[in-house]
């Protein structure tokens, strides 16, 4: 017992030294402006001490309780438990999402947050096809989101397309670009694929930024048409050919927000439905097989290139749908909205949720995007709290919230497959 304590303290002390080395530069020194206007270095030893103490205590707890990645979240029993929990949790989450607009006390702020969260749920599910199922690390997913948004915005601006016509076209165009990018890129593997997709995401953004004559460059595109309720516009006039007038309601701006909320909920559920159906099909099984072992796939006669392309195209299509929705919701888009950090957030949602798990991704999106809002009061500490939360989750559940996999078919009972057997894919 004493020996273990000593070992734990030594371990914690070592971690503290490393933390000190990092924090001295990142936190300890800060350039401030003196009243005379000159810059000077402010030393912040108190903050460093606080952070180092935190690291020491945290590491001591981890070492003493033997919280080790390999001991958690991998046994079949634990996998079955997670699955059961998810089975109860999924309908509850679904029901909550359905009734949210009518819960008393839910105002415009909550609905807007709900729309934001659902947009990321949809993007997470879309990327989950590429990263979670097919095992292709895509760091430029935001490009397809951007292509979808700009496709709809430009079609509306130049040709006056309505939202309901622009939405499928935006998805198709995004899928088309997915295939176009996929052809040269998908022969690359793992890290190389990640770098090229990252570059693709940046290229799209830079093109949008610099092609001023078409996209308006950094000024973006404004006045994007709002969606109508299947032909009935939302406006305040209250005439019979508007939404409020047709249904005999008092005109209220909240109608449109509620409609947008249900629209993105429907789009997200469509993504989910297609993914769940496709997982039980030959193509979905081929994606997962590709993630497990590409060479074995080739030996079984599976055309690896087209199989990867379909995953890429389908993921891109849902990204495009989400983009079109984003454009119509905001009414204004600019390249600012499609930076790399968006790709990183979507990927973090997928990884945190557990690659390949639909419910895991949904929960991760709620936690991440919702958490981001909750911590708003913490101002500049928000990122720190957020980062710490992610580290804790990754220590406790290294394969994401739901790391286990449900078989697509079974002769008897469907048993969850522990994360230790499932591969992450190497591109």
């Amino acid at each position, binding site marked *: 017992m004493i020996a273990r304590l000593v070992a734990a303290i030594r371990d914690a002390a070592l971690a503290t030294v490393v933390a000190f080395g990092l924090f001295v530069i990142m936190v300890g020194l800060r350039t401030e402006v003196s009243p005379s206007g000159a810059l000077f270095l402010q030393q912040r030893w108190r903050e460093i001490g606080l952070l180092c103490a935190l690291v020491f205590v945290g590491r001591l707890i981890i070492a003493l309780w033997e919280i080790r990645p390999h001991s958690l979240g991998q046994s079949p029993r634990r996998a079955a438990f997670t699955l059961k929990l998810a089975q109860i949790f999924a309908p509850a989450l679904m029901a909550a999402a359905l009734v949210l607009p009518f819960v008393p006390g839910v105002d415009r702020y909550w609905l807007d947050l709900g729309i934001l969260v659902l947009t990321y749920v949809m993007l997470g599910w879309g990327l989950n096809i590429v990263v979670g199922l097919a095992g292709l690390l895509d760091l430029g997913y935001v490009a397809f989101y951007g292509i979808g948004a700009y496709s709809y915005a430009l079609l509306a601006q130049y040709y006056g397309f309505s939202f309901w016509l622009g939405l499928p076209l935006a998805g198709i165009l995004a899928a088309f670009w997915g295939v176009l990018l996929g052809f040269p890129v998908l022969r690359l593997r793992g890290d190389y694929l990640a770098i090229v997709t990252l570059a693709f995401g940046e290229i799209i953004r830079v093109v949008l930024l610099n092609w001023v004559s078409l996209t308006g460059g950094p000024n973006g595109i404004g006045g994007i048409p709002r969606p109508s309720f299947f032909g009935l516009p939302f406006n305040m006039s209250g005439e019979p050919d508007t939404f409020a007038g047709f249904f005999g309601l008092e005109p209220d701006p909240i109608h449109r927000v509620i409609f947008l909320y249900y629209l993105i909920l429907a789009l997200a559920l469509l993504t989910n439905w297609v993914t769940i159906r496709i997982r039980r099909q030959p193509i979905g099984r081929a994606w*997962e097989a590709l993630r497990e072992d590409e060479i*074995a796939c080739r*030996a079984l006669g599976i055309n690896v290139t087209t199989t990867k392309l379909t995953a890429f195209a389908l993921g891109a299509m849902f990204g495009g749908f989400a983009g079109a929705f984003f454009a119509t919701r905001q009414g204004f888009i600019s390249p600012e909205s499609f930076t790399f950090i968006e790709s990183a957030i979507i990927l973090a949602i997928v990884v945190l949720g557990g690659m390949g798990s639909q419910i895991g991704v949904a929960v991760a999106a709620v936690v991440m995007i919702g958490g981001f809002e909750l911590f708003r009061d913490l101002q500049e500490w928000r990122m720190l709290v957020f980062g710490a939360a992610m580290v804790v989750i990754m220590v406790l559940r290294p394969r994401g919230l739901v790391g286990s996999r449900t078989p697509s078919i079974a002769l008897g009972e469907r048993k969850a497959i522990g994360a230790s057997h499932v591969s992450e894919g190497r591109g």
Partner: protein
Amino acid sequence: MSAALQTAEAPKILEVDGLTMRFGGLTAVDGVSFTARQGEITALIGPNGAGKTTVFNCITGFYRPSAGSLRLHRSGGVAELHRLKDHRIARAGVARTFQNIRLFPGMTALENLLVAQHVPLMASTGFGIAALLGLGAYRKAEKAAVERAIAWLRATGLLERADDPAGALPYGAQRRLEIARAMCTGPTLLCLDEPAAGLNPRESEELSRLLRDIRDGTAAEREAPTSVLLIEHDMGIVMGISDHVVVLDHGRKIAEGPPALVRNDRHVIAAYLGEEDAA
């Protein structure tokens, strides 16, 4: 011996002619020619580094041969394997297993066997639309695929483990599952790379029986006899089940013939025991 009699008559299934594979300056396989015949088990043996796996990788399309030709004789005609890409070779009717098992560890045994039937299943999905909506033609095809998978699970004694992840199966079971997976592609020629490696004597005995049944078409219901090409180190198995043996050493063929003949061949003994070669 009936096997020896067959050798003279049985039609060709795989014709390897002047196969050469160079990696830079190293010639791993040098002008190897041999023929595998229908309804036979052909064994490819030789000391370590003789070029057996390289020959295998050429046949299954993982390497493109530097020279020579590979012809697969099927009912529909001749496929020139040296011109095809790997997944096309698999579709042409060559299935393989790997020296270090390559299953899909996170998928169940049943799923592994369904992935093997990807090509015919894909054809029935109508670009995925029919399957997405759950239409009849696809349902029928999937049912047939599951039945075939069950037949092979039964043949390899894995039916009780059908819903377990492949990665959780014991080693011997993983070897058998890989063979079952290869057979589910409905091949004309089954290529096995050291299937008995790491098996205990009882498992090796079972494997021999399974391979004989695959050759005779009695392993699973409604399966046609399948010719087998096999790399193996376990001489007990090789001599026990093969109808024809090809011996490689340093990338060259040094002997060929029925097992009884090859066993007593001077060059073969020299290659294996490292004696000074008089020839």
